[in-house]
C-alpha cells in the first residue's frame, strides 16, 4: 500500500480504494496499479470488452489567446503559431475538432514530452488549443509553454478535473449509452457533450490500441460519470499495470522509458509525428538533426522485439549475431494477448529491419529476440470512413 498522506489524489482516488484497488505512487499521485482481478485479467477484459482508466494524474490544459480577434480561422492560426515553435507537429493545419499527437522538443531536437493537441469544434472556441501532457513532465512542460507564449496566450491547467479513458471494442457502446453524440466522432477527433447538465470534453483517442474515448470532466461530475459507466456490465476499472501492458502491445512508447531528452523523433520511429511542411521549412527545434537522420545519418532506431524465454525488461542489453551489445530494452514484459514476451528497445538502423535475429541478456543469459513490426497487436481505431 502506498502512503496516501504525502501523495496527490485524483477525483477518483476514493472510488479506487473502495473498489479494493492496490494503490501505488505514480508521478506523485496515489494511483491504482490493479483492482481485484489483477493485471492479466484486466488487460484481456480491455481487449475483449471495455476498460475504464483513471488518467486524471496527466496534464490536461487549455492554451487560449489573450486577445482573440473574433475571426475564427485567424485566431486558430495565431494560437497555433504560438505553440508550433516548441513542437514538430503541424498545428496550423489542424481542422476544427481534430486532435493530433505531437512532441515537445529541446534545442537539440530531443523529446521533452509527447502530448495531444486538439482544436475545438465550436466557432466561439477558436483561438484555443486543448492539450494533454504526461503526468511526470507536466510542471516542466507548462513552464516551457508559458515562457514561450508570454502574455500573448494564457495556459489554464485542467489537472484538477477528472480524466477518464474508456477503451476497448465495447467502449463505443458503453460511452454512447450516456453520450449518443460520440457516434459522430472518429479516431483523433474531439467534441463536447453534456452529463447531468454539465459540459464535458470528449476525444476519440487512447493509449491501448483499441477504439475508445477520453473524457475530461469537473471533479464531482467525473465521480458520478465513473460510477455510472461502471454500472454497465461491459465496463470494468483497469489499473496502471494493464495500461502499461496494453500500450506496450500497441507499440506506443512511454515517456521516461522509451522516450527521453536525448532521443529524437526519428530515432524513436515517430516519423509520422514530424510534419512534412515543418520538415521542409526546418522550423522546429532540432529540425536539421531530423533532416540528417532521415537522409541516413541515424545511429539508433526504436524497434519491437519478440523474445524467446523469460521476459526481457527495461535495461536488458540487446546483442547482435556476434554477441556484441548493440542496445538496450527500454520497456518489456509479457504480452497477455500473445502469451509471449515482447519488448521495445533501440538498435542500430542496420539491425532495425523486421526479422533481424538479435539476442537479449536476461539474468546473465542470452536469449533469442527477433525484430518485429509494431504494433504487436493490431490497432482497432475507428478511423473516418
Amino acid at each position: 500500500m502506498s502512503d496516501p498522506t504525502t501523495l496527490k489524489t485524483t477525483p477518483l482516488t476514493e472510488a479506487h480504494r473502495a473498489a479494493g484497488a492496490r494503490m501505488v505512487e505514480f508521478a506523485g499521485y496515489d494511483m491504482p496499479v490493479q483492482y481485484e482481478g489483477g493485471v492479466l485479467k484486466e488487460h484481456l477484459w480491455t481487449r475483449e470488452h471495455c476498460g475504464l482508466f483513471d488518467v486524471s494524474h496527466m496534464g490536461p490544459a487549455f492554451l487560449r489567446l489573450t486577445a482573440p480577434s473574433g475571426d475564427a480561422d485567424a485566431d486558430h492560426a495565431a494560437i497555433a503559431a504560438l505553440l508550433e515553435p516548441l513542437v514538430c507537429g503541424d498545428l496550423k493545419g489542424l481542422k476544427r475538432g481534430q486532435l493530433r499527437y505531437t512532441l515537445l522538443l529541446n534545442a537539440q531536437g530531443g523529446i521533452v514530452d509527447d502530448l495531444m493537441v486538439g482544436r475545438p469544434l465550436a466557432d466561439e472556441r477558436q483561438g484555443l488549443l486543448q492539450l494533454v501532457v504526461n503526468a511526470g513532465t507536466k510542471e516542466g512542460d507548462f513552464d516551457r509553454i508559458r515562457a514561450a507564449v508570454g502574455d500573448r496566450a494564457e495556459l489554464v491547467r485542467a489537472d484538477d478535473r477528472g480524466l477518464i479513458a474508456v477503451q476497448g471494442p465495447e467502449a463505443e457502446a458503453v460511452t454512447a449509452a450516456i453520450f449518443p453524440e460520440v457516434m459522430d466522432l472518429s479516431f483523433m477527433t474531439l467534441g463536447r457533450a453534456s452529463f447531468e447538465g454539465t459540459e464535458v470534453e470528449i476525444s476519440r483517442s487512447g493509449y491501448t490500441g483499441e477504439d475508445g474515448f477520453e473524457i475530461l470532466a469537473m471533479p464531482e461530475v467525473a465521480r458520478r460519470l465513473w460510477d455510472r459507466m461502471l454500472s454497465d456490465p461491459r465496463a470494468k476499472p483497469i489499473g496502471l499495470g494493464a495500461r502499461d501492458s496494453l500500450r506496450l502491445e500497441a507499440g506506443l512508447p512511454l515517456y521516461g522509458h522509451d522516450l527521453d531528452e536525448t532521443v529524437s523523433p526519428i530515432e524513436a520511429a515517430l516519423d509520422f509525428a514530424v510534419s512534412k511542411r515543418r520538415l521542409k521549412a526546418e522550423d522546429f527545434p532540432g529540425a536539421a538533426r531530423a533532416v540528417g537522420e532521415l537522409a541516413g545519418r541515424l545511429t539508433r532506431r526504436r524497434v519491437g522485439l519478440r523474445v524467446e524465454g523469460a521476459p526481457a525488461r527495461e535495461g536488458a542489453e540487446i546483442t547482435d549475431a556476434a554477441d556484441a551489445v548493440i542496445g538496450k530494452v527500454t520497456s518489456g514484459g509479457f504480452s497477455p494477448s500473445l502469451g509471449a514476451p515482447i519488448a521495445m528497445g533501440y538498435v542500430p538502423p542496420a539491425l532495425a529491419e523486421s526479422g533481424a535475429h538479435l539476442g537479449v541478456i536476461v539474468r546473465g543469459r542470452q536469449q533469442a529476440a527477433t525484430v518485429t513490426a509494431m504494433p504487436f497487436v493490431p490497432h482497432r481505431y475507428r478511423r473516418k470512413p
Partner: protein
Amino acid sequence: MRFTKEHEWVEGDGDVVEIGISAYAAGQLGDVVFVELPEVGKQVKAGDPLAVVESVKAASDVYAPVSGEVLAVNTDLPDHPETVNAMPEKDGWFVKLKLTDPDQLDTLMDRHAYEVFLATL
C-alpha cells in the same frame, strides 16, 4: 509446512523437502506468467536465489529457505505457470532439495507463526 519471512514454504520431514511460495505470495504477485527453475544438482545455500517467478509486470526472486542440493524441479511449471496461483502450496511446488543440515528447518516459522507474521504486514 514451514515458512520464511520471504514467503517461501518448506514441506517434508526427513532430509528431502519440497519448496514453493505461499498462497499469500502468489496473491501478491498476481498471475504468474513465467517460472525459471534451477538445474538439478545445483548446490544452494539458505538465502541464495533459487528460482524466478514473473507476473505481467515484474520479475521476483524465490530464495532458498534452507541449504542443500537440488534433487528435482517441477517440470510442469514452465508450461503451466498458472499452477503457482491455482495451487501455490501443493501442485505449484518449485524444487525438491536434499538438505545439508536438517536442523535449519527449526529456524523457520510454523503456519501459526507465519500467519501472525502476515498480520503485521
